[in-house]
């Protein structure tokens, strides 16, 4: 009995907290990808609650009805052989639930791995986001600018973040816009998202990457396309160009504030993608050797 009440009150408290006045970041999506994910989360919570309620109902019934203290001393519980109909139900029920959630999972997984729904006709904005201990570098190849620890994006436009790392594996995560994806040293991964409303969003590295991990955050700001264009224009007029030496200096472990440059580091320190993906870390002479070999 005590167990039942303790348990019910806990579920109840959780429900209150979950639906409380301050919506949780993940459940307060501001873009189509995060919205898909939030919907999947609600669907799965609802489905799983059904199972939990059934299990609880049976458990409580059994505990109340078949307590030893409620039965006569000479009651001898029967030997019950398994019944094919009962077995069919307890196998069939989980199977049905899993088929349903399997469909939800597969369809939503394909959805978040492509250009956000409703934005297919627009040219996506490509931003390279690379991590180094414990910073994020954002390169805009088309706009020819680079920022550190903050990123501005235009709203209502599909964005493709190209992720990689100058060090440990990190995970690029903006909870209100899309789920996370790893950034690694030998491969580029792609995260699709779009922001539906202008505003500021929290972004961070979610994957443990050493001492400065807790502070490895960045700010995301969504602007209207017009404001975004003005911002780019402004940078071209005010910021200094990034040089290789300066970039190598930035890569050193530590924390930096927000920085802005013209040009991108992609020119002298390209991302590990394309033909030489994962293999363009050696020096130039090594690569020449490779080409000689292939000539044989």
């Amino acid at each position, binding site marked *: 009995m005590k167990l039942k009440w303790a348990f019910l009150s806990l579920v109840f408290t959780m429900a209150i907290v979950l639906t409380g006045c301050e919506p949780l970041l993940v459940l307060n999506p501001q873009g189509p990808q995060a919205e898909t994910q939030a919907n999947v989360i609600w669907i799965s919570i609802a489905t799983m609650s059904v199972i939990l309620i059934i299990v609880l109902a049976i458990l409580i019934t059994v505990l109340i009805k078949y307590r030893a203290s409620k039965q006569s001393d000479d009651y001898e519980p029967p*030997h*019950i052989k398994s019944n094919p109909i009962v077995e069919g139900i307890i196998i069939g029920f989980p199977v049905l639930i899993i088929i349903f959630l399997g469909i939800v999972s597969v369809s939503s997984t394909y959805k978040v791995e492509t250009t956000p729904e409703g934005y297919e006709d627009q040219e996506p904005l490509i931003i390279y986001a690379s991590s180094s201990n414990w910073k994020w570098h954002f390169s805009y190849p088309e706009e020819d600018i680079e920022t550190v620890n903050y990123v501005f994006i235009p709203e209502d436009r599909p964005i493709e973040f190209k992720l990689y790392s100058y060090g440990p594996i990190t995970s690029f995560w903006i909870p209100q816009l899309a789920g996370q994806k790893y950034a690694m040293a030998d491969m580029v991964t792609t995260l699709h998202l779009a922001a539906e409303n202008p505003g500021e969003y929290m972004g961070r590295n979610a994957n443990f990457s*050493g001492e400065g991990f807790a502070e490895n955050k960045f700010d995301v700001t969504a602007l209207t396309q017009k404001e975004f264009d003005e911002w780019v224009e402004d940078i071209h007029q005010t910021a200094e160009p990034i040089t290789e030496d300066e970039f190598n200096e930035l890569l050193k472990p530590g924390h930096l504030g927000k920085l802005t440059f013209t040009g991108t580091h992609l020119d002298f320190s390209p991302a590990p993608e394309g033909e030489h993906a*994962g293999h363009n870390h050696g020096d130039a002479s090594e690569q020449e050797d490779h080409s000689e070999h292939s000539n044989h």
Partner: protein
Amino acid sequence: MEFFERFAIYHPSPLIYASMVAIGLVSIAIVVGITYFKKWGYLWNEWLTTVDHKKIGIMYIISALLMLFRGGADAIMMRLQTAVPDNSFLDAQHYNEVFTTHGVVMIMFMAMPFIIGLMNFIVPLQIGARDVAFPRLNAISFWLFFFGAMLFNVSFVIGGSPDAGWTNYYPLASNEFSPSVGVNYYNWALQISGIGTLMTGINFIATILKMRAPGMKLMKMPMFTWASLLTNVIIVFAFPVLTIALLMGTFDRQFGTNFFTSMNGGMDMMWANLFWIWGHPEVYILILPAFGIYSEIISTFSERNLYGYKSMVWSMVLISLFSFTVWLHHFFTMGQNAFTNSIFSITTIAIAIPTGIKIFNWLLTMWKGKIRFTVPMLYSIAFIPLFTIGGATGVMLGIASADYQYHNTMFLVAHFHNVIIPGVVFAVLAGFTYWWPKMFGFMLNEKIGKWAFWFLTIGFCLAFFPMYVTGLDGQARRMYTYSEATGFGPLNMLSFFGAGLMAIAFALIVYNVYYSFRHSPRNVGDDPWNARSLEWATHNPVPEYNFAVTPEVKSSQAFWDQKKHGHKLFDKEYEEIHMPNKSGVPFIMGVLFSIFGFSFIFAIWIGVILSAIGIFACMIHRTFEQVHGFHISVKEIKETEEKFGGADK
């Protein structure tokens, strides 16, 4: 000088030095104590050289409890550090070491040895055997585990603890980003105890397949034995992967190879794959025996036969197979395409089917039963809803698209504690209480046990349910601190409070052992719980030879058959019993292995070579050793049986 600097690294916190001093003092106190009470001979003869599966089982459990307190202290420190925003109780590096050791200790040196300890004690009794198939190998398994665990703990004092998480992902774990010897400790401590575990796997498969009592067909084995068989099959398939992965990591760090680097064709993603190809089956290695324990306990205290025996067995077989097909769900976010993620998403959530079947079977076992609320049963009852929640959030995490939001957050931390604590920890505590009279011949106090149960259950809920919420609110795991603006503060404080309640529960459990040792009546008889399976057909505590006469079995509830249906378990005359000799060599090999590991960690090659020679010498010695065991005479058996108030003959 440089040589010595590697051993004594500087710590910013006086706390660490204080703990080091405490460890030193306790060690000295133990040595002095044993010498003062003249117990060295007893320790050596009765415990360190034993090959008896019962004593080895007890040693496993004692070590696991010790490690539970080590890992628990880590847990309390983490919860304390994150209880309030911007706390400075631990710095980032120290916090990283604490959560790394917490994870490794709890999985490798607490949960697994506890499970293996219970298996050691119970499985031979449940199948009516005198010991395991290879008693000497069993002792080696234990000592390798024990010295692996000790080696890992030495890292705290000498050289620095590992700090790359228990998952130890490269390149973070490489020399470049983790320059201290900590990760070397990780590699060698896990390697040495892992070899021990692999031997356990082989040993128990042989034991269960070859040494069952007459009449005990596979489908007439008690459920815990079935679970143990499947667990050990998983061990034999999964652990070699860990062995090789650790070896590759060792080569990367100590010999400059490039298996997991991002240069020269190495690949960091390979470590993640290898780690989880072992790591996912590993969690089923923990949970299957737990399922077995619950099956025994629920059936006993409902006074009912286990419902759906066949579907219980088949669902465990399915879980074992599936355990090798889901590893990728630990990194859905690593950039595979949607098709790959979809496949692994389906295999992952499909595990819920056999698990769900088991939950319903347990519920139906209680149906029409006569439920007694003893301590083991309370743990089993609480397990059902709590594990259902853990399983439900597991299914949620298994949905790949949504996992992008849960991954690496406190939601994940809440989930795996939600399955491991009510799943594994409740199970071993239930099993510990249930089989305690089997081990020591008296009962643990029920009243204190119930207090501990409530503290643990409520503490668990308060400690981990808030994490589901903070995870969805964007709190990443493994952050040593967070700002006040995030709003994570109150819920983290609640977690800390819950962790405190859990600490009280574990203190109560230890107190219960002490209290019961002093005050519990010693004449509990052979069947204090009105149990059903074969292990209860012998005396409490179990005599050295287990069963005076080999039992003949006709169902999975052999003891129940004897009590209720007049089945004759022991229908033979006493005969001489052949027993294996004890040996100090397994212990010596354990010591040599730990010297080998320690020397390798610090690249002291002379120590490596000498200890390797010693290890091979032990093996050669074994090859030429002429030991044939000894015999317990019929007279001795009769005397022992009479002392226990007459055999059931």
